[in-house]
């Protein structure tokens, strides 16, 4: 059992949990993830580590309340416990002085991007950051990221704050030189960013969170095609060369269980699954 030490609402339906997990905190590095199981009947959900503090023995992770499990997690309060957390999983990010790094984050993944930017900043990189969301209300960590960035941009799908869409990046890329691009967010965003950086030959690293079950290389449901080769998101990733990922296939694979996910989520909202359990 892992105790929730604090709950922070980053934006509507986006929460950051700080949990007591000293063994994971000691080992965690930027880019890694954990598997969270809410209770005995729960599914295993991969979530990217957003903070860790070996001294305090804590880690933090953010989630968007979109599915049954994340909605259920959203009802938990400080002092509540989640049944199991396994980690840290996946390969840590490569963090060293690359030079100028373009960091693009969207949605809930802005949370782990802050951790990434902290590490890149500490190793002497010049960070140009872009944070994006569907609408301005869903943005968060703007000040924190801005403080660590040489330049800072905001983009929203509807243009309610900052640039409308990521189109402006084309101009940024044409005007400035970058040694690396790091992108974390929804798959269509990763695809767009990779398409934009490709003509400039900027090495682009994307964080993929495909559907996973065990998260340790056993099931293979997280398989992605990277440069025509089969890779597992959990053990070969979660970071991959953004210019080699087959995004169309990944988007289809992420939708595989959509009807079941919707059913599960709907039943949860209606007050349980009919088995007497809320």
């Amino acid at each position, binding site marked *: 059992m892992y105790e929730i030490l604090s709950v922070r609402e980053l934006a509507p339906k986006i929460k950051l949990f700080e949990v007591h997990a000293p063994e994971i905190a000691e080992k965690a590095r930027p880019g890694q993830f954990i598997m969270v199981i809410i209770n005995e*009947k729960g599914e295993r959900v991969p979530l990217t580590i957003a903070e860790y503090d070996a001294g305090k023995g804590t880690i933090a992770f953010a989630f968007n309340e979109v599915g049954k499990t994340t909605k259920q997690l959203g009802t938990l309060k400080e002092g509540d416990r989640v049944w199991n957390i396994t980690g840290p*999983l996946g390969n840590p990010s490569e963090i060293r002085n690359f030079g100028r790094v373009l960091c693009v984050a969207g949605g809930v993944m802005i949370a782990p991007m802050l951790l990434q930017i902290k590490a890149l900043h500490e190793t002497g990189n010049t960070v140009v950051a872009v944070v994006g969301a569907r609408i301005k209300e869903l943005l968060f960590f703007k000040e924190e990221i801005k403080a660590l960035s040489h330049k800072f941009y905001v983009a929203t799908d509807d243009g309610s704050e900052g640039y409308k869409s990521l189109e402006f990046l084309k101009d940024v890329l044409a005007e400035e030189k970058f040694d690396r691009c790091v992108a974390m967010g929804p798959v269509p965003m990763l695809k767009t960013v990779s398409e934009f950086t490709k003509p400039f030959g900027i090495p682009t690293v994307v964080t993929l969170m495909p559907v996973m*079950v065990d998260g*340790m290389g056993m*099931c293979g449901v997280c398989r992605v095609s990277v440069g025509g080769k*089969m890779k597992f998101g959990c053990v070969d990733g979660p970071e991959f060369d953004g210019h080699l990922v087959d995004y169309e296939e990944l988007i*289809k694979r992420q939708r595989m269980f959509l009807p079941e996910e919707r059913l599960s989520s709907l039943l949860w909202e209606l007050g349980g699954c009919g088995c007497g359990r809320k």
Partner: protein
Amino acid sequence: MAESKPKPKVRKQAVPIPKQPPEVRKHNFNEVALGYTEEQALEEANRCLQCPKPQCIRGCPVEIDISTFIRLLREGKYDEAIKKIKEKNSLPAICGRVCPQEEQCQKMCVLGKVGEPVSIGRLERFLADWERARGFTVPEKAPSTGKRVAIVGAGPAGLTAAADLAKLGHEVVIFEALHLAGGVLVYGIPEFRLPKSIVQAEVDYIKKLGVELKLGYLIGRTYTIPELLKKRGFDAVFIGTGAGLPQFLGIPGENLGGIYSANEFLIRVNLMKAYAFPEYDTPIRIGRHVAVIGGGNVAMDAARSALRLGAEQVCIVYRRSREEMPARKEEIENAEEEGIICKFLAAPTRFIGNEKGWVKQMECICMELGPPDESGRRRPVPVKGSEFLMDIDTAIIAIGRTPNPIIQSTTEGLAVTKWGTIVTDENGKTSLEGVYAGGDIVTGEATVISAMGAGKKAARAIHEYLMNKK
């Protein structure tokens, strides 16, 4: 003189084990074989000839004194009989169900020469179930040695090594990467062949021996092997991480929706209980027509699970013929009784999807058998131009599993073969001092009982190592 004694009348046929009828069981996940009643167990035990030099023991990978436990059973001393088994085997309820006895103890049974061998596995199961119904008694443990052993992986090898080491007085901690103990017993073998409550009961027994169980610890990530030895105060480590990585066919279309590795399919169904979705959160989608590729026990398990999840038709596609099928004969029979179709001498060449990225057809090619290959089985050779299409909604790829690489890649100096298995001597000792390994991680995919045998041997070697260490 021996000849003057009246010859005992030998019953050639074994007492059959009651089973759920196929028409009923194909719709539920309850156990197929129901187990002997006391009367049936006694009747079967009485078939045993009590050979002066029992051959059966030689066929048992964990050296159970089979002839003695059968004698105790037929004398009605069930308590002593199960104790006799447990001297060597801490997981009898599991072995009685999933061991390939026909290849081991029962193969050696002299009755097998004139008729059917004694059903040793069924008798073992009877005794284990009898004991579990009454509650376990914990055997006496040796006084504490003050030594600490870390066991990596709570599968058959790890659980066996843990039990033996605990009985010898060592402090034992098992680190299991998944959220439940049992390894392949919980994620791989289905409920209808091995109820999870039985695995849990056997795990509880091992906990009663004083073994500590840490769930959700992926060794190699949470801690590494050198850290366990140097920082976490363990005197020895046993690695029993199994062969849990799926193999794929490497043919076009394999990443379409509806195509599962057998591991994914079985993990969803067994470990995550997707058959009880949405009560349990993890879903599974099955469709009407299911193809299972492969001919081993895992293929049988996947096919029979698919049927129970509501598939209309389940077809096993195997590239060799029935004779070469590696699955247990009993399991093939069970599957066919339930209505599963076996398509022999065929192999998939590609998957064809619909516009949503979901599989709709599988193209196969017919095979014929050529001369034997390295494995001694006749090599399947494709018949040119014999491609055909099968309409399917789901494909399950059950063509074998490979070793988990995480420990090997995070443990400097650990000798590994080119297949990724860990190199050990015959007692499980690896190239690193104080580090032992056994089970599928050493041999590649094999059986539950051979992993247990390896766990047992390694426990003995670890004990010796710890006792001789200053």
